[in-house]
């Protein structure tokens, strides 16, 4: 029989202390869209369940024209979809959130949960990677700032240590003359886990033809969501042309390390990375 102790702390401090005292036997509960299913299937059997939903500090989205965006861990995917700052300044996040699960899952699932669950296919990871986001992590000893690239360590494993909780994600302003896009490959039009996810952020020089900066991130094709710097470097400073796009896309595909699983073969995923990267670059470079 599944038995556990349930806690609902009202402050982050309390939560960190409970988590630390549990010595690895606790799980944090946010939206529960992954955790509760795993618990029902006996895949995880936590002794302690620490529900974060009573902690006000973990809720809400803030925006500052200078500093950028702050998305707290308990923000749901549906909130991303309807937030005017996100729709206005970071539409890629709404676009990625739209592809997650179903309406019901988007209403419950959270940004913090999506990232901390650390599945390679997490839909919010590639967009946040190309936005150069960083994680604000709270522990008993205070706050830490961790670039998102360093946040994911392995499937289902983040850099967070015992007693540490993801508090929020900071997203800097997007560069001048830039546009970002997330393309997800799934079979169905809803309720899909990404077979491949590709995010591209493209900033152009004032000539609006030359790549000032490009960032490319991939989901579901490596043990963690990854940036592909080699592909980025091949485009940097170049005039955007079909052959340059193809080259960068091929490099991205070559750097993907997909596995064969129920959702697709490694070979097929690599090909999809190439196609979607090329499409995403083309689309992002089309800045109006």
């Amino acid at each position, binding site marked *: 029989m599944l038995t556990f102790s349930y806690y609902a702390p009202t402050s982050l401090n309390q939560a960190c202390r409970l988590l630390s005292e549990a010595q690895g036997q606790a799980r944090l509960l946010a939206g529960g869209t992954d955790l509760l299913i795993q618990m029902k299937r006996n895949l995880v059997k936590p002794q302690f369940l620490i529900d974060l939903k009573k902690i006000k500090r973990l809720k809400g989205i803030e925006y500052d024209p200078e500093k950028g965006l702050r998305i707290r861990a308990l923000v749901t995917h549906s909130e991303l979809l309807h937030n005017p700052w996100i729709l206005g300044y970071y539409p890629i996040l709404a676009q990625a959130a739209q592809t997650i699960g179903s309406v019901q899952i988007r209403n419950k699932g959270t940004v913090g949960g999506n990232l901390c669950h650390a599945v390679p296919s997490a839909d919010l990871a590639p967009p946040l990677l190309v936005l150069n986001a960083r994680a604000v992590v709270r522990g008993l000893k205070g706050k830490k700032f961790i670039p998102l690239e360093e946040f994911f360590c392995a499937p289902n494993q983040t850099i967070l240590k015992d007693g540490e909780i993801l508090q929020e994600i900071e997203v800097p302003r997007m560069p001048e003359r830039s546009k970002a896009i997330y393309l997800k490959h799934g079979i169905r*039009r*809803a309720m899909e886990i990404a077979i491949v996810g590709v995010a591209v952020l493209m900033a152009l020089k004032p000539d609006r033809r030359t790549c000032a900066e490009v960032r490319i991130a991939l989901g579901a094709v490596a043990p963690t969501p990854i940036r592909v710097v080699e592909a980025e470097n091949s485009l940097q400073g170049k005039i955007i042309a079909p052959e340059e796009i193809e080259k960068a896309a091929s490099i991205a595909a070559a750097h993907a390390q997909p596995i064969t699983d129920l959702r697709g073969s490694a070979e097929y995923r690599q090909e*999809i990375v190439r196609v979607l990267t090329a499409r995403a670059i083309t689309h992002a470079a089309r800045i109006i």
Partner: protein
Amino acid sequence: MKHHNYSIIGHRQPAVDAASKATGQAQYTVDIQLPGMLWGKILRSKYPHARILNIDTSKAEKLAGIKAVITHKDTLGKKFGFVRNTADQYPLAVDKVRYIGDEIAAVAAVAEDVAEEALALIRVDYEVLPAVFDPLEAIDPEAPLIHDGQNNISARLAWEFGNVEEGFGESDFVRQDTFYTQPVNHCPLEPHACVASFEPPDHLTVWASTQGVFYLRNQLSRTLDMPISNIRVIRPQVGGAFGGKIELFPFNVCAAILSQKTGKPVKIVCTREEVFTATRCRHPMIIHLKTGVKKDGALVAVQARIILDGGAYNSTGPVATYLAGAFLCLPLKARNIKYEGFRVYTNKPVCGAQRGHAVPQIRFAIESQLDIIAETLGLDPIELHLKNAVQTGDVTLNKQVITSCGFSECLEKIKAQRSPALPEGKGIGFATCAFVSGATYHLFFTTEAFANAIIQANEDGTVSLITGVADIGQGSDTVLAMITAEELGIGVKDIKLITADTDLTPYDWGSGSSRVTYQAGNATKMAAAQVKKLLLEAVSHELDVYPEELVARDGRIFVRDRPEKGISFAEAVSLAQKSTGGEPIIGQGEFQPQEAKVNLQSGEGNTSPAYSFGAQLAQVEIDKELGKVKVTKMVVAHDCGLAINPMAIEGQIEGSIAMGHGQALYEELIQEKGQTLNADFINYRLPTARDVPEVETMLVESVDPGGPYGAKESGEGIIVSTIPAIANAISNATGGRIHSLPLTPEKLLKALEQKTK
């Protein structure tokens, strides 16, 4: 389209149980709560093939909250099976387990999680045996034997009409292909479930999510060795079945035995994983197909050799093997036909009936190959079908009697819908189907009656329709209520339904093989006509006219030529009761198909009293770089006989398309060494509401002489043509041809790569 003067029949009628389902008032098996009720759970094999050396239940029995643990020793060790003379499955494994999921023991406990905990405490010692998963390996004489016998062939049927070798010789063009289909699950929204309550000394009541209460009762009676009159089977509302709830399952028997042992009611509800792996799935097939045609497309010879991967037990195997061969050509005619079907045991989940029962697989192959042939010869595939189309009055080579056929009209309607030129990346595909309106008597080797109905008129102007039909969500209760209302001239709301309870209702075989509208519909119409006769006689005396001058309509019985002269239906019932000295006003009806004599061995005989026909067009949009297929629209022309409830028929057609669309593009039970890897709804992809295409339905109402008001089937036929229509559309758009289901993006990319080589 309206070609009749019916007041109820042919009009759009929302389902009689729609409101109770939409508001959550409908009671399903899982909703049943009885005092002292226990939860049952099944211990299943974790090996695909093993001998059971010992089962130690002592620890489980000692667990607090456990009320009973049973193994095969607590059963009578009687085998059961869908077809009686090929019964091969035990309620609980006796000596061997034959697939991962095979039932070994069952427990009853005060709560579901206690029952689960007890399962983990049962110790089973196995001797693992070599297993075989590939049907081609299983058919080898050297393969490990799954059942006692000479080999792993669970059914073999073969026949030839005409001479195909001569036929191929006379043909201008001969094409040979091999097609493969995959295992899929019905995925009913409501999982399989039952509640069994044993009342001493010897009476058993079972509430079950089932397609047929009488069939289940008979199977329980044999397996438990109890007289049928001591068993009562009741069907609460059923949340979908699609062929997957037509049989007896071991958990039904276990619930009954557990209840007998504990003296308490026992409920067993399958988990979704159990539904996927331990109920039934659609037969995967390997189809070797050879077709010879004349230059003008006339079909000369069709030869098929089919291997059905049956899984661990026989289930509906012989019937599936027969149906695949019986529908090798229909709705088309060929001059020579040869069929050989092998159903093979493998150490995998069991395959049985599913919507279309073995016909969608064979039709995927045939319609794909005809499309290839048409393209090769530069023929229009619709013209090719028109040239070979079966017609009313035809008797096919295997002696299927075509009593009504609007197939050519379906083809003409579809032809008119075909848009001429399509832009790059878009395509259309065409395919056709034929299906049964219920099977005939001898196919199932049953001695039971086929369909009965009783109707009693009440003096408040309502009638009670008492029938054993188990509506499983398809809307048959509504159709039977409409037939009753039409015949008696009252409203659908005036029909009180008492259904699917073996103690209260007369026999009906159940909701299977698309039989209810045709067969139970006829029985119901006959019962209503008897009631009407009694009422008209009484009214004729009262009004001093002949009964033939009277009409029952709009809640009244009146003189045809002088409508103002008449009385209300309620008054007529009172009058009739008085005139007979208080006898109840009851009518009864039955339906038996004509002596059909289907011979499974020779393949000869009339499969069904009537056949539906259809043609459809699939429109697709393809992303050639990703291999992604989007079905944008389906246009269907369906000859379902007279459409009793057009609204329900459209629903059935849309349902067939949703299911066929999933099976064409997404669905597959992925099995590795007998283990199902995707027994959940995230990795087994059903189409969502956002994926299912727009459907345009055109009904072709050939009025069948034997159907009630001329009705035929509409529940299954269209899934048959949905799958090949999508396959042909993909080929039309890309030039790539995929010979195996499902038609995944990955396979499409490979097919396109091969084409450019």
